[in-house]
């Protein structure tokens, strides 16, 4: 799929912008705090229906405006489709070709994206929350139905947590929520394990390609209820049975401590470098290579499902050193996906593979095309 045009109105600091983006590479450049990441965020919001930086929509609307709108034309598996996303205090709009969307999966079938941004260093060096959400996002990229399981599991978990906190729920009540938690948890863990199977091999290869052959072998595994041997798929019924067992042994502790102590919401993705968890020792540069390899693995897993999400890379200039940058460009040259890049210095990117590039300069919320690729 390719986003061939993008139009925003009253988005962040951009009053209005129209971009013709029918190219393999779209480069947004400008100094810091001018709005280039805002445009990338608009593409992400169009593909994900939420921002990667802001949960309150009010902050997405330009200062002193009432509503915000993003329009995009996508050319993909189902031909040309026009997407419109808009928000105001009174309404939210999601339209494909002028028709309101009733099922989110219809939307995600048209446009999907994979994002790499500076904050993603936390996937390697931060807490398990970031790593779990990476696995869930990767599972969603290839199989959007994963989102339903994640949401339902989270809802049951929140009910159970509230019940435990209230200290009014007897064993029978807690067990009623546990039965559902176990069913959904089994599905969640099995889907994550399947996602990990899809990611593992592409991850090893992508890491070798980005970090270079001498930087060690990087591998992935899950820790906790959903752990599996490399390449092993889990049977949800088996995980559910194990989960039920753990829930019933842990029931008294959970009631006493008023907390949910067992379940896949406490699992962790372990990224190993030469057999040791990278979280404990990876340098900034190693962490970036690993995150980039995770994202490239996500793209490859999607490709094997016949999908080609957009690849959005924010602020590469500050993220990668010269040699990693050169190797990344070699990897990008072999992909079919449309790639969006933001950078403060386009010369630093060097010539992009294939030369199929459109560039825009972003200054103080104004967006202007560059006819000549900058020297």
């Amino acid at each position, binding site marked *: 799929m390719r986003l061939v045009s993008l139009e925003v109105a009253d988005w962040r600091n951009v009053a209005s912008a129209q971009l013709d983006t029918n190219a393999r590479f779209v480069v947004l450049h400008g100094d810091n705090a001018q709005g280039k990441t805002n445009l990338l965020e608009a593409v992400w919001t169009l593909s994900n229906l939420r921002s990667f930086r802001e949960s309150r929509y009010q902050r997405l609307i330009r200062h002193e405006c009432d509503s915000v709108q993003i329009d995009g034309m996508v050319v993909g598996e189902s031909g040309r489709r026009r997407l419109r996303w808009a928000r105001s205090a009174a309404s939210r709009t999601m339209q494909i070709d002028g028709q309101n969307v009733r099922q989110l999966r219809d939307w995600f079938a048209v446009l999907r994206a994979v994002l790499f941004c500076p904050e993603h260093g936390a996937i390697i060096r931060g807490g398990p929350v970031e790593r779990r959400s990476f696995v869930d996002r990767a599972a969603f990229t290839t199989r959007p139905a994963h989102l339903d399981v994640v949401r339902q599991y989270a809802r049951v978990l*929140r*009910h159970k947590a509230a019940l435990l906190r209230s200290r009014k*729920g007897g064993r029978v*009540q807690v067990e009623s929520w546990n039965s559902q938690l176990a069913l959904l948890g089994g599905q969640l863990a099995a889907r994550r394990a399947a996602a990990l199977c899809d990611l593992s091999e592409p991850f090893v290869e992508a890491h070798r390609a980005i970090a270079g052959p001498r930087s060690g072998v990087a591998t992935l595994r899950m820790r906790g209820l959903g752990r599996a041997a490399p390449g092993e798929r889990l049977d949800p019924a088996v995980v559910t049975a194990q989960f039920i067992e753990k829930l019933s042994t842990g029931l008294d502790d959970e009631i006493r401590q008023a907390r949910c102590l067992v379940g896949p919401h406490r699992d962790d993705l372990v990224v190993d470098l030469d057999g040791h968890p990278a979280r404990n020792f990876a340098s900034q540069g190693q962490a970036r290579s690993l995150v980039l390899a995770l994202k490239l693995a996500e793209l490859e897993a999607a490709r094997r499902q016949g999908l080609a999400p957009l690849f959005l890379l924010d602020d590469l200039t500050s993220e990668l050193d010269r040699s990693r940058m050169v190797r990344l460009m070699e990897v990008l040259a072999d992909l079919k996906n449309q790639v969006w890049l933001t950078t403060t210095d386009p010369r630093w990117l060097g010539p992009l593979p294939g030369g199929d590039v459109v560039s825009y300069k972003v200054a103080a919320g104004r967006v202007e095309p560059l006819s000549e690729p900058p020297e």
Partner: protein
Amino acid sequence: MAADPLRRCVGQLSRLPGIGQRTATRLAYWLLNQPDDVARDIGEALSELHDTAVRCEICHDVAATSPCHRCANPQRDHRVLCVVERPQDIGAIERTGTFEGRYHVLGGALAPLDGVGPEQLNIRSLLRRLSDQPVEEVLVATDPDVEGDATALYLARLVRPSGVRVTRLAHGVSVGTELEFADKSSVARALENRREI
């Protein structure tokens, strides 16, 4: 100063859920253009609602009398009790014309996040009915969402030890829907609830 009668009418109508200012205005003008007994009939029905509608002391349905006509009807089957979340769910099952048993309205579903526990629902009276009446089966027809499912599981755990059968309303692909057009979760439920033929 006397209130403008039309504006008052629009203001009151727009308090209804799903009715905005524009629809309220349209309804008010429509009423104004009808013979005056239309507005009077509607008004009487509305103003008597709270005085005449009562909760049935047995099943907690909204009715004109307590016990309600269904609970008072000796023809209805005592042995099967259908448990629903809301009074309006009874209507949905009654319209099928295939259920001859009795009902029990819970008044909601378990939702600890919203502070709803068993004490907030009509569960004690349900258990009393089970011990007083010769009920053989409790059919749980709560909504097919996480709260409805948790409520069903909770009731099953409470009721089963007394030897009463507990069943759950099947969920799946609706009749008249072609499989390819059915939504994913309905198909998934239908697969789970498949039965031998």
